[in-house]
């Protein structure tokens, strides 16, 4: 069993190409990488929006904005 093309370091070095395992899976890795990247943005933007929405709501209630500007704790801990 070997995940790569290399089983020993003997032979002609000029014949050795890729060193990483699972040669041939580059296209799939690219798709996975792109999905990870786009998914991260979607997750982050949702998280940021929810955070601001909750905090804005809290700050608009009662006298919370005034308290926050004076340094009092009105927002939820993380």
């Amino acid at each position, binding site marked *: 069993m070997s995940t790569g093309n290399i089983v020993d370091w003997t032979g002609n070095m000029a014949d050795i190409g890729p060193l990483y395992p699972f040669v041939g899976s580059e296209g799939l890795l690219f798709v996975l990488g792109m999905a990870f990247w786009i998914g991260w943005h979607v997750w982050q933007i949702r998280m940021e929006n929810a955070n601001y929405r909750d905090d804005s709501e809290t700050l608009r209630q009662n006298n919370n904005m005034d308290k926050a500007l004076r340094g009092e*704790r009105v927002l939820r801990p993380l």
Partner: protein
Amino acid sequence: MDSDIGALTIIFTEFYYWVTVVFMFLIHVGFCMYEVGASRTKNMMHTLMKNTMVIPLVTITFFFFGWWIYWAFPNGIPFITGEVPEAAAANTAWSELMAPNMQDRITGVFWAAFLLFSWTAASIVSGAVIERIRSGAFWLVAVMVGSVTWIIDAAWGWHADGWMVRVLGYHDAYASGVIHAIAGGAALAVLINLGPRIGKFRADGTPRNIVPHNPWLVTVGLFLIYTGFWGFYVACNIPIWDVQSGDGVFYSATNIYLAPTTLSGITLNFLMSLSGGLMAAYIVSRGDAFWTYSGGLAGIIGASAGNDLYHPIQAMLIGALVATIAYKMHYWVERRFKIDDAVGAVAVHGYAGFLGVVIAGFMLWGYPSSPNPEFASISPWGNFIGAIIMFFVLGFVPAYVLSAFLKGLGALRIPREIELVGLDLSEYAGRYMSEEDVKNAELEEARGAGFVR
């Protein structure tokens, strides 16, 4: 790698670029320190994280498609203005050469050198927009500038076969336009859609000076940017290249266009243009530390387009002139158009970069833009058109469109109430509170142990 001299040349070149990457990392450290120092205490952590996350986001996208763009776009827009060169195939994210491979030793380090330029381009925008942009919106702009638009301009005007070099004779050896003008143009576009920070302008329209909360951090950050700039300059060269046309061999360093220059020459010019910028900015800003340091940067950026060929005193005078104009432009634009550029990025990078390209067109008029004698020679009009392409076409326009789209969705700027209380209170309150909780717990512990009565 089958002869001693061949192996030494390859390994030296590999190591050369690798070292430039390490130096250029300091540019990003400097930008982070600079921005955090320039922000108010209520926004420090948000400011830091906004710029820090440029690193992974631009890195992965530059791997996925940015690097391919550099090799695919030298003829303009692929399949419309020209074919995709064969070299592009080896630089896709799925190429076997974009990974550990015994048949290639240069792609990764060359990619990384360009990647660090990409971080810089995105990071320039970051400083201008602090304290009111949503992180998610900024990171989309950062990916666009860092992994798409700047690298298109690099393919066009900073590539040995780029169409701007071939047709216009565009010359921009150390990226006055290719990185600084485009990033400055993009920053200006985002600022227009973003608007000024609350309190920046009085009711009568005159600006207030929102001072850095930590001037020492700002100045150390700018020193680090100077340091990283050395790596940047060196990375813009090919260290060993046979520049002799016809018979014979003559090895020299070259600029990015494979035209001869020397590391000695660019060292002289880097330091002289830095000095010219510092000295002029000290005078025009009346000794203001923030602007004196920034003027040093503007001096380098203003001379960079031609610093492979200028005389050092020319570089000094150009640096002084450009730093002065950039300073004056910053305040004129701020007053006239109510643009709140928190760190002067549009002036230091955008206006200085634009001017640097234009000045190089005059100063180097008639010089060959490339070793290829069929390419157009350097001219004022070629570089002026190039400067317009950098600042407006690839810098301002795409960033304006994206930021206007995000603004339309309500996704560009943070809510007003959050801006008033500070981004850190909203996003990092829990961490500050737990520090205080721990202090109280320690006090309780001390009381319990009898250390405190």
